[in-house]
């Protein structure tokens, strides 16, 4: 009697084993990245969290490895509290600005751009991401500077009064755009905008045309359709994008150094505290703030039903 099945090589035996036990293959594939995620990613985060519960000895400048909430209490000191508030407001404003700027672009790309125009869209969004972050920020500093192209353009078009009016605004104005909060807002929004457009576009693309037609068919005006159908369905994408813009702004320490009036932001504070000041516990405590804020933000968004359409 001849064998029905051909002789098995080692490779055949292996594929057979994986075919019979698919979970084994899955385990083999997923263990290395899980280890990476667990040890290096979450592990270092836990170490950070732990550090934030230590304190620093004020005389020796040494870290005291004993559990205390003293470091967190320090966050409430006026100068530290100001940093947190300033960063929070800037992050929220940048996120809002990004949403407003990104929506028409994402909507056009999702609904109308076809074929070649879609490729142009993706290229247009991604291209700025390919060049160095520092180059872009310095380029913006030149654009926004007092001798920069914006001032020049305003002079040429006799719209200086607009620029001056913006700079005269209390709190957010300043000597020139590059040394004001307005300038910082512009740079942040520019740098993080792609991270808002892409998830927004992806969520808008999943809204079938028939759903918009159904809304119209039932008597809704365009504005009503926008408010009651498009926005709720795009909300998961907006939230995803805002997670990027919000957390990236919260953690950034370079833009506030280059653009703006050198007021301190969380990222800068962390950088200075763990570097020159050697106050790792306070730096860690500062670093925990964005995490906490993001968690609060997400739970609020979930409670508001932002993920119901998922």
């Amino acid at each position, binding site marked *: 009697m001849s064998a029905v099945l051909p002789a098995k090589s080692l490779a055949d035996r292996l594929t057979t084993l994986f075919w019979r036990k698919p979970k084994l293959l899955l385990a083999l594939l997923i263990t290395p990245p899980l280890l990476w995620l667990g040890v290096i990613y979450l592990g270092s985060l836990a170490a950070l969290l732990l550090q934030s519960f230590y304190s620093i000895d004020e005389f020796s400048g040494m870290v005291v490895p004993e559990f205390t909430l003293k470091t967190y209490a320090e966050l409430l000191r006026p100068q530290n509290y100001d940093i947190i508030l300033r960063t929070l407001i800037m992050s929220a404003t940048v996120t809002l600005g990004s949403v407003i700027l990104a929506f028409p672009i994402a909507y056009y790309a999702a609904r109308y751009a076809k074929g070649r125009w879609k490729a142009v869209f993706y290229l247009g969004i991604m291209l700025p991401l390919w060049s160095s972050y520092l180059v872009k920020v310095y380029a913006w500093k030149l654009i926004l500077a007092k001798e920069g192209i914006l001032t020049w353009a305003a002079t040429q078009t006799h719209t200086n009064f607009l620029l001056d009016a913006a700079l005269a605004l209390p709190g957010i104005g300043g000597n020139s755009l590059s040394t004001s909060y307005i300038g910082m807002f512009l740079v942040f929004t520019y740098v993080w905008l792609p991270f808002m457009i892409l998830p927004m576009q992806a969520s808008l693309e999943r809204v079938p045309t028939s759903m918009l*037609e*159904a809304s*119209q068919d039932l008597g809704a005006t365009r504005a*009503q359709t926008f408010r009651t159908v498009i926005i*709720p*369905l795009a909300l998961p994408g907006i939230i995803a994008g805002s997670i990027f813009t919000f957390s990236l702004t919260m953690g950034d320490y370079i833009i506030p150094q280059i653009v703006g009036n050198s007021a301190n932001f969380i990222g800068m504070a962390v950088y200075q505290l763990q570097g020159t000041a050697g106050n790792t516990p306070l730096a860690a405590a500062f670093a925990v703030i964005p995490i906490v804020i993001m968690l609060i933000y997400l739970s609020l968004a979930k409670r508001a039903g932002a993920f119901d359409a998922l």
Partner: protein
Amino acid sequence: MPAAVEFRSVSRHFGPSSAPVKAVDSVDLTIAEGAFFAMLGPSGSGKTTCLRLISGFESPTAGEICIFGENVSNTPPHLRNVNTVFQDYALFPHMNVRDNVAYGLMVKGMAKAQRYAKAEEMLALVHLDAYGSRKPGQLSGGQRQRVALARALVNEPKVLLLDEPLGALDLKLREAMQDELKSLQQRLGITFVFVTHDQHEALSMADSLAVFNDGKIAQIGTPAQIYAQPKTRFVADFVGSSNVLPPALTQNLGGPAKWSSLRPESLHLDPSGPLQGTVTSLRYLGSGHRVAITTQGQDIAAILPAGSPLPEPGAQIQLGFAPAALHIMDEV
């Protein structure tokens, strides 16, 4: 009294005007108030475009569309008193069933208590009273269909448009929904305009129907007229897969030298019948058998009722029919 829907030489062309795609090509159509009107045709025949012209999602390239005597050619969809049941139902996934149904009232600014009461009424109409707080994602296909129906009816439209609403349902559910739609239409007295590519559905549900082909209406009539007296070869073939006979064969069978149609179920085994041929295939249909023969180079199908004696494939048989069954077509 004006007709519910009237098309006056309506065309809808797509693409460049030098070489347009004529989705709808100078169609004249009158749908009476209270009718259950079906638009039947193969895909790409223009029936769905016609429906979208009524709802306002397409504008005519030429011609006029009137709804109850009012020219609506330039009226946007949200201002037309017609509602649509979409093919994919298009229920809003972020709203529960009650909010979906009440949507049309919500955008009109009706107070919450009032619109919810009306929505519950509509849900009761489609036997979904207990499902108001569910999300569309938690419903079966048939239930979603009913929600879509309730949502479209809540505004009390004068014309309800249905775009292949039963296409996604399985056979049994489809038949149940057919009965239900029909009785709902009779109860409400609303004009229903129904698009389908399923001839059984069109024949069994509609009071009158239009058969579409290539952007034009091939024939309008009652189901019985369309079925028994097809005007063109296309209608004869598309509705009920009739045998379409060329003029020579019609003449051989005692008719004039014109194209004719012969329904498969009007043929029976008859040793002295005029149609003689070789059995080329035999198919079991459940309710009977479909026998195909070739005669004078022409394929002829006959449906033999269950219980009648069956020929062998390859056998020579003769088929007969009542003289009235041969329908002469004046148009080609």
